[in-house]
């Protein structure tokens, strides 16, 4: 009797659990038929099919006959855009985003706390987002190493990790790192000094190791035991990676002058800034940004939430675009991430961009500042099949995403969304 009861309980529990179980997306070849495909090299293609094989975009053509073992989805004219990329966010993490116990912490890495089950990953998928650059917070002048992840909700952290992206280190200027914690720095002068000092230490460390290696070479084998290596310092080694071209800098800044100061430091010490984050006053220094080939990862028009964000003009985006600065739009929150397409749509009114150029600000431009432009960010043969399907114009506030595909697997299907909600 007891075993029967236990057996029934086990079966009941298994049935109950199965309601919650979201089947992991199956790796399958896909044929998206009859879509309005937004390509950057061939323009907007009406009534075209897109074939996905082995997780890559294989063919874009009219009337493709589905090969065997290919799942066919009739889009009935819906828009297909490259999967949206959020180049600045903090989602999908299991804990704190700031190692604010100290000012310089480049040794910490966000990839160690990826939380693949976080519901906000799912909400982002519902907005057509396929990849994010999940970052360390801005409490430190030199923060930690960021991580690029594909939003493969439910997979393991290793599977979500995007290894092809550039390694990037978070830096922050302005109010956040000088936030009154009663310790140094309290001013922008101090913030600049902390960064400069860290590089001076890193270079001194490199010199120590250079001398050690030289001495080791010059010492006969029998005497090798006398040559003691310097203490290994992961912190300073992370900084040296930024000088050796192994890691780029992504720097949070707001004001124009602190940005110019950081550019000065970058030139002085030899680290490369891939993009400035937020940088509300970018419109004042479009020339300098372009001259140094630095992009920007910004909100389109969120502003005035703190003093350094109180001087801003969304119309200034036109100046930046006209000068050729790479503009990537970001959300910094999961709420905005799922409406990034609405934000990108506004590029048309603020900067006078056409649809495709506006679309680039949430796709290709983001991939470029993350080092992923060869693999994703546009619908081209051979690239990852990271795609988002919209039921109307993909930049309209009145459209919504109905399908999100990452490397050929469907991770969000609006029709099935209702099914997995549990009351």
């Amino acid at each position, binding site marked *: 009797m007891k075993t029967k009861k236990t057996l029934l309980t086990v079966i009941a529990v298994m049935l109950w659990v199965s309601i919650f179980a979201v089947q992991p997306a199956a790796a399958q070849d896909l044929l998206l038929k009859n879509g309005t495909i937004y390509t950057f090299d061939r323009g907007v293609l009406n009534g075209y099919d897109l074939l996905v094989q082995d997780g890559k975009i294989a063919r874009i053509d009219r009337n493709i006959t589905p090969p065997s073992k290919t799942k066919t989805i009739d889009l009935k004219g819906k828009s297909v855009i490259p999967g949206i990329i959020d180049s600045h966010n903090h989602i999908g993490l299991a804990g704190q985003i700031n190692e604010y116990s100290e000012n310089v912490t480049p040794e910490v890495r966000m990839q160690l706390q990826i939380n693949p089950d976080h519901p906000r990953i799912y*909400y982002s998928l519902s907005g057509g987002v396929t990849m994010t650059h999940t970052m360390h917070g801005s409490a430190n002048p030199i923060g930690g190493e960021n991580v690029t992840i594909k939003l493969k909700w439910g997979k393991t952290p290793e599977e979500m990790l995007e290894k092809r992206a550039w390694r990037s280190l978070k830096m922050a200027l302005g109010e956040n790192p000088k936030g009154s914690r009663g310790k140094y720095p309290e001013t922008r002068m101090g913030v600049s000094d902390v960064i400069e000092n860290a590089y001076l230490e890193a270079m001194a460390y490199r010199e120590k190791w250079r001398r050690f290696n030289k001495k080791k070479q010059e010492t006969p084998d029998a005497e090798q035991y006398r040559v003691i290596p310097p203490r290994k310092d992961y912190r300073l080694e992370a900084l040296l990676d930024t000088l050796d071209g192994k890691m780029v800098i992504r720097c949070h800044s707001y004001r124009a002058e602190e940005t110019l100061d950081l550019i000065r430091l970058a030139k002085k010490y030899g680290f490369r800034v891939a993009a400035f984050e937020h940088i509300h006053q970018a419109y004042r220094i479009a020339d300098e940004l372009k001259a140094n080939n630095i992009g920007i990862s910004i909100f389109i*028009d969120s502003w*005035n939430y703190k003093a350094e964000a109180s*001087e801003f*003009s969304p*119309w200034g985006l036109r100046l930046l675009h006209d000068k050729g600065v790479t503009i990537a739009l970001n959300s910094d929150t999961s*709420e905005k991430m*799922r409406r990034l397409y609405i934000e990108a749509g506004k590029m048309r009114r603020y900067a006078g961009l056409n649809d495709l150029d506006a679309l680039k600000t949430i796709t290709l431009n983001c991939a470029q500042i993350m080092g992923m432009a060869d693999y994703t960010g546009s619908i081209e043969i051979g690239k990852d099949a990271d795609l988002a399907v919209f039921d109307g114009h993909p*930049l309209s*506030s009145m459209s919504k995403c109905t399908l999100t595909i990452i490397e050929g697997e469907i991770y969000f299907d609006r029709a099935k969304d209702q099914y997995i909600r549990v009351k």
Partner: protein
Amino acid sequence: MKKTIILIIALTVFCLSVSATEHPDRSIAIKAKKIVTVSGQSIENGVILVKGSKIAAVGNSVSIPDGATVHEYSDAIVYPGLINAFTTLGNTGISAIRQWNDAREVGAFKPNLSAFTAFYPWSNLIPNTREFGTLTALTVPGGGMIPGKAVLFNLHGWTPEDMFINKEAALIIDVPEPPIRKDKNYKKRLERVKKKKKELWTFVDKAHKYYLRAKNGDQNPFNPKYDAMKDLWEHQLPAIIIADCADNIRWAIKLAKTFKLKAILNNVYDGEDVLQEIRNSGYPVILGSMYSRNRKWEDGLDKVFRLPALLAAKGIPFAFSSSWGSSAFDLPLNAGRTVAYGLSQEEAVKGLTLYPAQILGLTGYGSIEPGKVANLVIADGNILETSTVVKDVFVKGKKVTGKSFFRREYDKAKDKISGE
């Protein structure tokens, strides 16, 4: 003699007739590709005739008087000025800076406080917001359970008096929300909320009794807070009741019915669960921002922005709002988002114009009809669309010429001008 008199009369008549024609006609005629009247059918290639601060005529064949200033917008769509039904515009600035806060006050019951006393007409946020089509707004106080009274104003003018439509347009009541997260403090927090709600009920009850005693001519020891509540019954001052969970929405309806309040429900996050009850109550709804998350996984990711379509289907009047002053300019897109989730474009535009006007008692606003206030937005496209630019706005019949902070910053940066 006769000749002189005739001459004088002729001269007088001549002078009178000359002065009559020389009197400048204060009419403005606005010609546009499309006029969205909201109250009726849209008019293609129409004309709006404005006299003083009011709309005199709208149509295809409106005769334009001599001397009228004509504005031609051959590629534009004219909308009635948008109305933001619940914001802190003018009473807040940079949100992180405490000194900029004049909306959220300390204390539980403050019906004697009014947002208009702290209203800052020279806030750079006002021209910024106006530049995107919002021409009228209700600025509300916050903090506590009865934060105070809200001010209704037009987004154009020099002094506060120039801008105000109604200094005390509504009383705000904020029903305390029960905790959502079931952690170890849940029971304690729930008990505290229950206690606060009782206090809120008692306060309204006592204020009502105070009013009744005063009406009967009884000597009331003067109580400024209860006194400030009298308008609810003396003049049917609307009470905007902020309620989110289903229980609180029901509680708010019960409070309003018990004390015969002219209630307007606000936010109603769980409105979907109590749709019929809201319908039965007859109370309209002012929605919160559509750029909001669902609070629980079970609510579904579109919880907030699928509500307006449900309200519209049930025939419950609703208005959009964007509470934070710095992002209030994005109101039309905030509303536009709901079109993806079942609301029609016509209803979305109504939720930005006619419905808030009706809900807030703004009889002269919300549509383009003869007799209404000439608050007009000239847009180069669909006002709900992300690509649309507003070319011009008219507030109370006057074309607004001042540049917004956003525009001036662009001008300065474009030409690298130091200074203004």
